[in-house]
């Protein structure tokens, strides 16, 4: 067993887990943060994406011990009591998700992008979401939602046009 102390959504959390525990297992099984999903367990699908020190990471490929002392943001940490994160708002309003299993991962990948780049073009958004597979939607509305969220974050008025520039 290994003792781990990490910051999850701004709170210091501690656990004692077997060394082979992945970050995803730690979050889901020990901390009951089930927003990050297990889709493939080999880093292909991105359903387990969380933000580690500002970067989008596949939590199924990172050992819990590797996260020691780091700062983790999960989907549960995006909304606070005052507001939704603009990404969550935009995803809801444009109906960007269908079955929703990929959603938390997609939103966190998009957040990592927008934190770095407040005004990404479509190609940059596609690039940022390349590690997140979705079998339902075809990504169009997700990209639209990310663009809308970026506009909200920049303080510009939202555009709810259905067509996006390609």
């Amino acid at each position, binding site marked *: 067993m290994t003792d781990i102390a990490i910051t999850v959504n701004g709170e210091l959390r501690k656990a004692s887990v077997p060394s*082979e525990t992945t970050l995803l297992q730690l979050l*889901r099984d020990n901390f009951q*943060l*089930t*927003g*990050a*999903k*297990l*889709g*493939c*367990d*080999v880093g*292909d*699908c991105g*359903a387990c994406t969380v933000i580690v020190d500002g970067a989008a990471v596949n939590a199924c490929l990172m050992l819990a011990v590797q996260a020691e002392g780091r700062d983790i943001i*999960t*989907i*549960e940490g*995006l*909304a*606070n*009591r*005052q*507001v*939704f994160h603009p*990404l*969550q*708002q935009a*995803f*809801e*309003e444009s*109906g960007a*998700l*269908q*079955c*929703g*299993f*990929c*959603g*938390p991962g997609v*939103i966190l990948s998009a957040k990592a992008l927008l934190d770095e780049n407040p005004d990404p073009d479509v190609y940059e958004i596609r690039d940022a979401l390349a590690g997140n*597979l*979705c*079998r*339902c939607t075809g990504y169009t509305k997700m990209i639209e939602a990310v663009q809308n969220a970026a506009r909200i974050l920049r303080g510009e008025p939202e555009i709810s046009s259905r067509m996006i520039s390609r």
Partner: protein
Amino acid sequence: MNERVKLQEADRVEAKTPEDLRRADEDLRLPAIAPREQYPIDVRAPEAREQTNAVGQRATRPDNRLQGLGQLKYIADFSFPGMLFARIKRAGIAAARIVRIDTSAAEAMPGVMAVLTGSEIPVNSFGPSYQDQPVLAQDRVFHAGDGVAAVAAVTEQIAEEAVERIVVEYEPLPAVFDPIEAMRDDAVRVHEDGSNIYTSKTIRKGDIEKGFADSYRIFEETFRTQMVEHVPLEPHAAIADWDANGRVTIWSTLGRITLGRADIARTLKMPMSRIRIAGTIVGGNFGGKNEITQEPVLALLSKKTGRPVKGTYSREEEFLATTTRHPFIMDYKTGVTKEGRILARKIRLVLDGGAYCSWSETTLGKACILSSGPYKVENLLVEAFAVYTNKTMTGAMRGFGAPQVCFAYESQMDDIARALDIDPLEIRLRNAFDEGAISPTGQVLHSVVVKESLAKAAERFGWEARTP
């Protein structure tokens, strides 16, 4: 010591009225759980008994908000006190006789609560059309993804290790993987009883011999499509809880809970009234979660252990042990006039059914009906066969056979257009159904707008302006 006595006295002095008592009680109660976070964005809900408009309103999915917050609960997010985790051992061999299954090493492992093999399943067969699929392979293995034994353990990791310690001795049998080969009389039989062709359908309309005789040209081509896995992002998952009243509750990713319950009742040999299935949020179905998979296994493991048992397929199992889209082999022979009008069409469809029937019957039927396309074909012969092979079973997937035949008839349409030097759009307009057209199986079709749709689409995407 003295201080404590003093404090207690002080408490006693303070608690004079019921109100004081209540306050003292509340003061002692620590907030164990933080209050549930209130999300401030108002949810617009109509007043009770208020008539609201639906048409013209912007619609959002009711679960969109929960999805975005990561609060939507899929099976994998459920857990129950004392819950065990199940894993299934996969055969890894396409065709074999099971000589011996030794589970003793697995059973001896600390943390392993139960092991289950096919012989313990009351009725070890299921399927939506034909009950040809074992829940766990018992005497024979029909494809590499067959489950041969299952383990319930306190952690997923122990279950996985225990599965590796189960020893299965096989006597390999000859296998067949090509559906055309499997159709031959001397082919290896996938299932001992009966032919490999397990279902077939024929549609006859008009006189194809006369149609071909009148044709200006005859086009013959074979089209093939591949096997496709649904790959829902959420793997198959279920939790079974067999309670002390002898009733079983199953939470499952099953899309068709009513049909599933009938199948589970059959395999468990118990009345449906004792089985409760809770369908939950499904993380992608696409037809792949339309029938039961591991549910009877989990139910019996729960019965053996007296604890809830959860099973989640690995991504590898999703590919090996769940249904896929049928690969088709499609022979199309089409006779046309000089103007490209179809006079006669002869079609043979061979569906690679894999090891079990699953939804092949339905797929075969729909593929047959749609195999001549949305085109007027007066003289038609369709012969279709679903064939067993020692591969992962094929079943329902979006379209039930329609996409495969569409690939064939539209590809041939392009071939014909090119050979006769006719515009690909024009040849379709010449052959497409009109209002009141009769389908290959005799239905009179209404609200037919194929031509209008094609014309409008061509206009929208600039067909005229194309560079050939």
